[in-house]
C-alpha cells in the first residue's frame, strides 16, 4: 500500500464497558482496603522506586479500577516491596498487600 505519511492514532479513551476488570475484581476481594483509596498520592510521593522510575502506585490503583491493565506488570516490577507506602497512607490502605495481590492476579490470569 502506498504510504501517504499518515498513521492511525491509537485510541486513548478508556472504554469502561470493554476494559479488563479481572485484576480489580481479584484484589477487591483479597485485600478490601483497595476500595478505600482516595487517590491522594501520598504513597507515590514517598515511594522509593518512584523517585527514580515511572512507578506510580496511586495511578496504578486508579488504572486497575478502570480496567486499564497494560503495563501493570512492567511497572510493578520496579517496586521493591519496601512498604514505605503502607506507612504513609492516610486512609489505611494496606498498599503492600495490594501490590502482592496485584502480582498474584497477574500470575493467575497470565497477564
Amino acid at each position, binding site marked *: 500500500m502506498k504510504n501517504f505519511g499518515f498513521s492511525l492514532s491509537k485510541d486513548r*479513551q478508556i472504554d*469502561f464497558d470493554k476494559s479488563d476488570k479481572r485484576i480489580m475484581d481479584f484484589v*477487591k476481594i483479597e485485600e*478490601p482496603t483497595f*476500595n*478505600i483509596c482516595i487517590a491522594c498520592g501520598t504513597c507515590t510521593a514517598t515511594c522509593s522506586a518512584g523517585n527514580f522510575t515511572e512507578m506510580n502506585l496511586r*495511578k496504578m490503583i486508579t*488504572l486497575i*479500577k*478502570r480496567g486499564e491493565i497494560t503495563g501493570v506488570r512492567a511497572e510493578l516490577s520496579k517496586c521493591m516491596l519496601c512498604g514505605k507506602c503502607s506507612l504513609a497512607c492516610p486512609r489505611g490502605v494496606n498498599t503492600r498487600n495490594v501490590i502482592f495481590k496485584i502480582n498474584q492476579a497477574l500470575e493467575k490470569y497470565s497477564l
Partner: protein
Amino acid sequence: MNRKRVIVIGGGIAGMESAANLASMGYDVTLFEKSQELGGHLLGWEKLFPTMRMGKDVVKFLDKGVHLAKVNIVKNSNITNASKNGNLFTVSCGDGAKYESEALVLATGYDIFDAKRKEEYGYGIYDNVITSAELEEIFLSGKPLLTTKGEIPKRVGIVHCVGSRDEKVGNVYCSKVCCVTAVKQSIEIKEKIPDSNVFCFYMDLRMFGMHFETLYKQAQEKHAVNFIRGRLSEACENMDGSLLVKVEDTLAGKPLRMSVDILVLMVGMVPSEGTKKIGTMLGMNFGANGFLKSQDQHTMTSISNIPGAFFAGCCGSPRTINNVFADARSAAMMTASYLEAYDIEERITYI
C-alpha cells in the same frame, strides 16, 4: 397585653424554627406557607445524611415547635404584597386579608435547579436520566428503583454539581449538600440493589460536615461505591435505553466512556421564586448569586438592609439542615433583639 407581632414568610425548616423560637419568647407570630402543608423541601426527603435518620422525624420536631408555642399559621397563602410603612410591615394575601407586624422574617428557601437547562446531560430527553430529588421520591414511595423498561439497574451513574459551579448555567457557587447527598444515595442504592455498581462522577468531594468523611469511607468500604474524578461532558442514549457517559478520568489522565442503566443528576439549589418575589417587594438587597444579602458576611448574618426585616435558611445561601436550624435560631434572636431595641448596627465601626 399588647404583644409585638412578627410575620414569618415560608413554612420550611427555617420559617418553622424561627417562628417557634420567636413565639416561645412571647411574640405574636404568624407563619405563612404557600402550600397546604408545613415542612417545605424536607417533606420530599426520606432519610437524612449523615445519620440516615428519617426526615419525617425532623418534620415532627418542627411541627411540635410551632404548635406548642402557638404560632398562628396561614396555609395556602398567596402573598400579593409585602411592604414596610413607617415602623410597620404589611402583608396582603390574595383572599383580601391583610396582616401587620413590627418585624418580619423571610424564610422563602430555595428552588431545585431545573436539570433541563443542562441539556447535554439529557434530562427530559432520555428516559433513564433522573434527578436526586426524584430518586428521593422513589425511596420515599417505597417503590423499587427500576429502569423505564422495568429492569433492575446493574450500573448507576451519579453526576455531581449539576447546576452548581458552572458558569454555563450562570451558577458559580457550590450548593454544599449534593456531594454528601450523592454519597448517601449511593449507599441507599447499594443497600437496595447489592449487585449493582454505582459510580459517582465528581470534581471535588466536599465532605465538610463532621461525619461526612466517615459516610464517604463507609460508601467505599462497605458498599464498594466507585468515585471517578471528572466532570461529565455529555450523556447520550444507547439503542437499549442505557446511557453512554463521557468524562475525563482526571486521575488516570484519560478520557473515559461507560454505559450506565440509570443516571442520577445531583441538582443544586437556586434562589427560589418566592425569595425573588417577596424580597423584591420589600426592597431587600440580593447578592451576586441571587440569594439574599446580609449587612455583613461575617458579623451581620440574617440581618437585611431593611430595619426590622431578617432572613433565615436557604434564601440566604445553600445550607444543610443543621446549618438551617442554627441560622433560624440566630435570625429569631436578631429579630427579638431588634424588637427589644438593641441596636446591633451601632457596633459596625467600619462603615
